[in-house]
């Protein structure tokens, strides 16, 4: 079995990290959600904000979060390494999180995964295998950044990815003729007057 290590040694060094003034305001808002002296409770929100600003979480960013929230840096590292949604290595602009849990797998996530891996170039797209995203009704599902793209097959996935590549944002949700998780082909019942 491969050696496991939580600290990616092969990540590029980032010299410094500072929140933008707008984000700093947001940080203040997060901290204000908790009673005085409990500012450390905001750590997950603040880490997420740092990740959105930087694209991933270099160590300097975690240190900065620790400084702002008056925590020991190790406490921030613990949290950032615990949650898989914090990216400790640089990612492409779009992170393709492919669900491979049973329902998606039965509906063809292997082919989706293959296509995503093919598309992943590290700059525009990065790919990550994830456990159940909770969209089983619309399997197979890929989460791209914050949105779910559902009911995919290789062709529709390619369409979505091409749109992203062109800089567009394709419509999230089912990529077939279906409203959310309602049956395919439009309304079938309660059509009458």
């Amino acid at each position, binding site marked *: 079995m491969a050696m*496991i290590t939580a600290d990616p040694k092969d990540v590029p060094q980032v010299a410094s990290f500072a929140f933008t003034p707008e984000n700093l305001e947001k940080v203040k808002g997060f901290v204000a959600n908790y009673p005085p002296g409990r500012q450390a409770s905001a750590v997950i929100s603040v880490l997420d904000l740092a990740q959105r600003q930087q694209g991933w979480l270099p160590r300097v960013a975690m240190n900065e979060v620790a400084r702002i929230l008056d925590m020991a840096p190790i406490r921030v590292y613990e949290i950032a*390494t615990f949650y898989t949604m914090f990216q400790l290595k640089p990612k492409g602009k779009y992170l393709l999180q492919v669900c491979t849990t049973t329902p998606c797998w039965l509906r063809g996530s292997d082919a989706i995964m293959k296509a995503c891996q093919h598309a992943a170039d590290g700059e525009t797209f990065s790919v990550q295998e994830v456990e159940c995203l909770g969209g089983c009704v619309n399997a197979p599902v890929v989460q791209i950044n914050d949105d779910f793209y559902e009911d995919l097959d290789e062709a529709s996935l390619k369409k979505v990815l091409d749109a992203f590549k062109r800089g567009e944002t394709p419509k999230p949700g089912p990529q077939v003729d279906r409203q959310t998780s309602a049956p395919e082909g439009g309304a079938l019942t309660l059509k009458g007057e």
Partner: protein
Amino acid sequence: MPTIKIDGKEMEVPAGITILQACEMAGIEVPRFCYHERLSIAGNCRMCLVEVKPGPPKPQASCALPVADKQEIFTNTPMVTKARNGVMEFLLINHPLDCPICDQGGECDLQDQAMAYGFDRSRYHENKRAVPDKELGPLVKTSMNRCIHCTRCIRFATEVAGVEQLGATGRGESMEVTTYVESALQTELAGNLVDLCPVGALTAKPYAFEARSWEMRKTESVDVFDALGANIRIDTRGGQVMRVLPRLNDDVNEEWIDDKSRHAIDGLRHQRLDRPYVRVKGKLAPATWDDAFAAIAAKLKPIDGKKVAAIVGDQCDAESMVAFKDLMAGLGSANIDCRQDGAKLDASSRGGYIFNAGVKGIDQADVILLVGTNPRVESPVLNARIRKRYLSGRCTIASVGPAADLTYPVERLGAGPATLRELADGKLGFAEKLKAAKNPLIIVGMGALTREDGAAVLALARSMAVVRDDWNGFAVLHTAASRVGALDLGLVPGEGGRDVAGILAGCGSKEIEVVYLLAADEIDTTKLGKAFVIYQGHHGDAGAHRADVILPGAAYTEKSGTYVNTEGRVQLGQRASYPPGDAREDWAILRALSERLEKPLPYDTIDQVRARLVAVNKVFAALDQQAPGAWGSFGTAGTTNDAPFVSTVANFYMTDPISRASKTMAECMASRSQLMAAE
């Protein structure tokens, strides 16, 4: 008080304790890995499962479950046995079977508990996980494959040592105990991590592959590297000290010792004085005891006792000090001093030179004022005790003296005596807090007393101390293990005698012709001038380099000796090994020398010496007792100068001849200065 039934036996237990503690009271062993009396409860190893009624029909972690009235607890039912079997099997899924090459082997909780509570085989045939080892500094060796994630080390570092540098990263199978940034822990208590680790994941680096626990002879003794007098166990094999471990004493060191006490022992093997030396034509030449004594007798006999001076070192036992004092008295010399650092303490009133409140008193203090001291380097274990008090949330701590990171927040009022005077006059806001406090504790360090104006500072501190029948809040934190014992025995200048500064000045002006150093190395030996120097000690350090005659003595592990710690507690250290070569126990050397000088000392056995100790000061009659000293007048009111207080311990890792000879301590120092430079 709730009444509970454990394995059918009914008992009453204090409210608020956990089931595990109740079982312990009932004398029933409950296996555990993560639970530790002095750390917060984690409840993550699941080894302490028991069956509890009423409750859900499943085993419960007894370490995290408080007792409730009319509870029934079972520790020997099939459900419990099976649960423990299962937990042990889980723990061993990823634990390597490398006990034969593991330093923990033979004293491993996992090994013992696997024998007692484990299943006899494993049903897991997958490969075990491999975890990279971590860098935790020069004292702690890691073998992270063996880690069972009990998190004791993380909790110790965070809670007791006060360095939040260890944590658990990742989750599930990827969980790792790490500093993440791969740097040595910046604590003086790192060695305790090794004791806490229930498996062989953290072992002592300097002791790696040195010995097995069952090969060693265990001797109970007392630490001499600082004035706390931590209780230790010395493990020896074939006459060599292999390691030092803490011994439990809630009143002194709980169960911790600092890294110097634990790891400076390799210094006992280097730079040792193993035979007498006599300086012949400017060069030290090996000699016999007879030659050495003859050289001393030839020098001492013709001269007046007033021209002889004596200085006592910082790690001496009381037995050698009383013999030393009696010898000097016999020679007619009043020039004797134990205060190498020049501390302005007087021996007249015991309350003026001991830590009256006792180390235990820290647990009751509600305001602590540190004066001229940095307890973190002067006594790390005592510092951990103050931190523990701080964590209880019922204590405010302020300091007048050096700025330092003490691992707990300290309100720094000022740097020197001027601030102290303002405080005494009630001009500072903090004076109100001090006045309002029920049990204020004023800890005066050597940094405040080893100054020209030390006596005035002492008087100032005295004026602020609260002394009642049930509380004496005046505490002196010494740095020398021998100091309180020496003051108890009156090793201070007699009528018309000279103190250390006077002796050194006398050497310059040739009024002092002979200086006898009893393991005293912390003086400026260049000031000894042309005096004839006799050095009796165990290491070839500053004193021995300057000496004209060297008498090889015994280090603290090699003699049975009495030590009085900073709180005035008399403790007995046992001999764990023998002095090297021709070296002898110190009191015996002094006894033999007195014979040659025709001033024989009136004792021939260690018991007679101890009887003499009691005759000189009756505190020596009661071992391991602590009480506030007699409260008299001490210190001299006077003017103070403006120089800031500076801790007398500049470098924690090297304070005495043994630690200066220790390679491990040198490595610790290098590692620390590297970290400092990186910051």
